[in-house]
């Protein structure tokens, strides 16, 4: 019982670091991919947040990114092992093409997350821990407080520049 809760917390921290790193490496906070992402960024900035962090949150909303790749890769590893993870990467690429996005970040994140999650499965974690952990990680970015989350992302983006 307590062991599983600790596993979920550790999985949340691992997947948070994974998808934020991949998203910032592919320059998501730089510009809005579609016009809706810029509108969401403008509304978040009007509510007191930072613009570049808001742009990254708008990009996560408007097309499947590395966060979606991590979640679907965890689902694929849970259902069918490492084959399911690669199938999930193909589905993320198709979804990216539907939403008018180049699709590099989502596919790279899904393939990377497949191998990371499979390695942690060998080390004693269950794949369900990573599904719940990824949902907790996306809650801390998009769901708790837009102002603080966008300022944190803007500070990380400044470090990468």
């Amino acid at each position, binding site marked *: *019982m307590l062991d*599983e*809760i600790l596993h*979920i917390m550790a999985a949340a921290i691992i997947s948070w670091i994974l998808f934020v790193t991949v998203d910032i490496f592919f320059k998501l906070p730089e510009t809005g991919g*579609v*016009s*809706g*992402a*810029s*509108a*969401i960024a*403008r*509304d*978040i900035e009007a*509510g007191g947040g930072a613009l570049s962090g808001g742009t990254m*949150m*708008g990009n*996560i*909303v*408007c*097309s*499947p990114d590395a*966060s*979606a790749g991590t*979640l*679907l890769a965890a*689902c*694929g590893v*849970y*259902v*069918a092992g490492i084959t*399911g993870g690669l*199938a*999930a990467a193909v*589905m*993320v690429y*198709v*979804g990216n093409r*539907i*939403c008018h996005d180049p699709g590099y970040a989502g596919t790279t994140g899904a393939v990377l997350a497949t191998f990371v999650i499979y390695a942690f499965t060998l080390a004693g974690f269950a794949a*369900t*821990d990573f*599904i*719940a952990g*990824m*949902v*907790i990680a*996306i*809650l801390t970015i*998009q*769901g708790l407080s*837009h102002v603080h989350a966008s300022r944190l992302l803007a500070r990380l983006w400044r470090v990468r520049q």
Partner: protein
Amino acid sequence: MIALYVVAAIAVFAAIRVIVEKNTGRKLPYANVLGFAVSGAVVLLIDHPLALVAAAAYFVGSTLESNAIASTYAGGVKR
């Protein structure tokens, strides 16, 4: 089994935040959290290979819906 309870609790929290928020542009990230939680719950409820396809289809569908609403909202504001 704890994972399913965690995902359901986050889904309820995100649904309440979507309804309480007034601004349209700030509603959409909460709706995205709800999509993540529900597509995780779909896979956790049934352990079947087609459940992965269902989760991916629901996720891409909800993202496409958010994308269409956000771009229409941006066009409406600009005019």
